[in-house]
């Protein structure tokens, strides 16, 4: 596992910091410096609320190397309130069945542990169901 590659994504992984396009106001996540909508330069930071809904989901029974210990786990495309869609794991699901359209919110959790060397633990965003009545 390569430390610098994880270290430089901290703002995105811990705080969903993306960008807003100064030309067309589109909100962008993850940051990419060129607006995917209008092609203009977009470097102005924007913090996402972390609220969204499930656009699609799947429960994985076969995991890639580094995630085998976690199976089965559920991953989703989450459509953020502000527009962009992100790919992430769902967590704290309990007995609740996941459905398309279900409201979710971002939490910071351990994403993987490096079993081979250095003992690095990678943290980042996951999404959990929003309990009815808590908002």
């Amino acid at each position, binding site marked *: 596992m390569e430390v610098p590659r994880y270290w430089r994504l901290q703002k995105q992984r811990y705080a969903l910091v993306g960008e807003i396009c100064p030309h067309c106001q589109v909100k962008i996540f993850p940051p990419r410096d060129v607006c995917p909508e209008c092609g203009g330069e977009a470097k102005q930071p924007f913090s996402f609320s972390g609220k969204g809904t499930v656009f699609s989901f799947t429960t994985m029974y076969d995991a890639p190397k580094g995630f085998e210990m976690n199976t089965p786990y559920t*991953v989703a495309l989450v459509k953020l309130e502000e527009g962009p869609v992100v790919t992430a794991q769902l967590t704290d699901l309990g007995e609740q069945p996941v459905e398309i359209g279900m409201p979710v919110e971002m939490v910071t959790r351990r994403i993987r542990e490096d079993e081979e060397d250095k003992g690095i633990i990678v943290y980042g965003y996951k999404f959990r169901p929003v309990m009815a009545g808590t908002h």
Partner: protein
Amino acid sequence: MREVIVLGIGQVKVDENWDKSLRVLAGEAALEALRDANIEQTQSLFVGNMMSGAANHQQHLGAYLADWIGMRYSEAFKVEAACSSGAAAFRMAVMAVASGDTDLALAVGVEKMSDSPTAEITAELATAADADWEADHGLSFVALNALIMRRYMHQYQWEKEHFAPFSLNAHANGAHNPYARFQKPISESSYINAPMIADPINVMDASPMGDGAAAAIIAPASMFKRSGKPTVKVAASAAATDTMATHHRSEPTWLRAAERSAKQAYQQASVSPADINLFELHDAFTIMAALSLEAAGFCEKGQAPRLAQEGQIRPEGRIPIATRGGLKARGHPVGATGLYQIVEAVQQLRNEAGATQVNNARIAMTQNIGGSGSNIITHILKSE
């Protein structure tokens, strides 16, 4: 640009070939193609491969293979475009000859997967997706396709069993292909009851891995003729990209790069979907077969499962797909797949497809997909 033909084809059986290395597999397919073309070597060699660096600790496959098959001094490169590496290598060979730069080019697709443990291969396959924003979150390549399939089922109100005909057709056809990994038909109940990988994708939706290699020789139409067999012309070659990550597409259930490369290919070949006699598409997962059919214009959005239910995708149907087993039954040795599709289309156009021969096959289309739809390459071949 001058007109080019497929002068020769070669392939090995897709399998767990424990006793054969990457270069032995690639060499067998390449030498068979050279024999079939009745030539000894070509000036150019393009090797389609995705993960030899990680899976076989071997890169630099151009010189590596040129040396192995007695073609040193030819130019030779590896071409990488994830699961579409095979068609990318084929397209490079077509361009090299069509441009007039070279008179004979060899395209070989090869992948040697059985040397690595499954979890490692799963992680390596996931490098076809965006490492920072997809794979790092624990998603496998299957999971990305499962997200697309779930959304598609939700959007168009299909149930899981409606995808069975794609798998059944592929296995029924693969039963007649001696080069296929699996050569037995399957039943609807074995489809329904197969173990889940990433729901709704189960083992019978997903194409199997395997070791494999396939090859084709490209030559100018004006300089070479095949004696005794129909000539197969390359009527179109087109490639297009889409966003790297699935989540960046406004409509993840529509393969824009497939639509774009297919439209360009139709234009180049001066044909429309109605003229295509068979379609070797990229059924890495049943959902991808459906999306390819729709994006290439063979049915309306969301209606491919209906086309399959009606039997229109079988060899005797309106638009036969996976006629030699497709990725599902022939197998999906990643970087080799695009060249297997070419080889199988050529077999059909030469009337050499045996029990799954499509009647009066004159125009065949192939479509090779890289990533979850981020690179899509379409070819149209014509026999005369």
